[in-house]
């Protein structure tokens, strides 16, 4: 049975914890709004980019298509780009991405393919190191980045493209969390090289336009940009998801701390009452004994 003083200390410490989680929740809420805004602001660019590329890709596929579009012709070496956060305390955010990447890696290895892993964000790297450490090829550290910019995405994309040009892999897939709402983030695997487009691309859109310099020239110019854009979108979605996940995790923590405080307070009051009753009984029985 903990003493009154112990109980009081514990209530105090849980109250402090609650203050911290509450503050973290509010910070995450503010950051979430900003992350959502930048994800929103990036959407027109990405949408238009995809639309134009899909139109061009439809007409340029076949012989002589750029390798970024048609692939290397092989399907042997897979590059998994696992994007996670730099900080913890965000619920299942990192674990869900890592789980998805792990399943994909297992499947590929079971099929006898070669797997290479490029990690973005240290949390995923830590979780994957034990089982898949030998497949790591590179790591991108974004912990110094205050505000995600296109520059960051371009850096990652350039790294990926340089590896592709050097023939280090055949297929690249991004793993990140797509933001649906504060309580729901969907771990997503998205193949970026060779480029895939949704089927909804309009047929024959390319006939409508004049191209300068040429369709192939434009496509060759756009595909690397497309990779950077997709990486950027993924980074932004991930950032918004991270804050969303942290917000709901901290909301839960705050609520749990509240419950715990209530329980401890009841226990504290009960023991205080018991102590008073005990003293009274001692006094009364002492008086009766006289």
């Amino acid at each position, binding site marked *: 049975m903990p003493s009154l003083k112990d109980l009081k200390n514990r209530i105090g410490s849980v109250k402090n914890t609650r203050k911290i989680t509450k503050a973290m929740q509010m910070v995450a809420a503010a950051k979430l709004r900003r992350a959502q805004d*930048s994800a929103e*602001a*990036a959407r*027109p*660019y*990405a949408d*238009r*980019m995809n639309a*134009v590329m899909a139109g*061009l890709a439809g007409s340029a596929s076949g012989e002589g298509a750029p390798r970024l579009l048609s692939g290397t012709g092989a399907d042997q070496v897979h590059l998994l780009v696992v994007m996670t956060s730099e900080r913890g305390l965000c619920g299942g955010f990192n674990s869900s991405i890592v789980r998805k990447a792990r399943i994909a890696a297992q499947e590929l290895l079971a099929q006898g393919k070669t797997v290479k892993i490029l990690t973005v964000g240290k949390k995923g790297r830590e979780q994957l190191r034990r089982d898949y450490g030998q497949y790591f090829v590179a790591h991108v550290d974004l912990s110094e980045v205050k505000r995600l*910019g*296109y520059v960051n*995405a371009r850096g990652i994309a350039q790294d990926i493209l340089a590896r592709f040009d050097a023939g280090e892999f055949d297929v690249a897939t991004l793993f990140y969390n797509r933001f649906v709402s504060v309580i729901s983030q969907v771990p997503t695997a998205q193949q970026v090289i060779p480029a895939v487009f949704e089927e909804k691309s309009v047929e024959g859109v390319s006939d*409508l*336009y*004049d*191209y*300068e*310099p040429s369709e192939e*020239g*434009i496509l060759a*110019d*756009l595909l690397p*940009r497309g990779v*950077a*854009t997709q990486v*950027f979108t993924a980074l932004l979605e991930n950032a918004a998801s991270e804050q969303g996940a942290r917000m709901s995790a901290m909301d839960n923590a705050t609520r749990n701390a509240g419950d715990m405080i209530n329980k401890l307070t009841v226990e504290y009051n009960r023991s205080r009452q018991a102590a008073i009753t005990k003293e009274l009984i001692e006094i009364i029985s002492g008086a009766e004994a006289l």
Partner: protein
Amino acid sequence: MADTLQFDLVSPERRLASVAATEVQIPAAEGDMTAMAGHAPTITTLRPGILRVSNAQGSQSFVVTGGFAEITQTAISVLAEQAIPVEEATGTVFDDLIAEAKSLAEIALPEDKAAAEKMVNDIVAMRHAAGH
């Protein structure tokens, strides 16, 4: 036919402009072109240069470093990798761009060398055009 067209300038990070314009001067890959309403539908890549939008209220200029433009009869969308209003583009912005382009030109493969050097020259020319 309407005498204005809808002009949108977006960079990956934000939408910079969405206005009605009478004419838009675009630094296309193979030379500047000016598009007005009713222009033949065209898709072109951009070289680093100054993008000028004119409408009844006057004209606005932007420094763009690359990307592409989609022109239809009634609208122009410019997707620029990097776009800065000309008023905000100071000497240091250009210095950074030139330094970046130069470092890229140095590590470029032989077959890309010419393109990378053209990039440097384009940016230097753009700097002069912007009056720095």
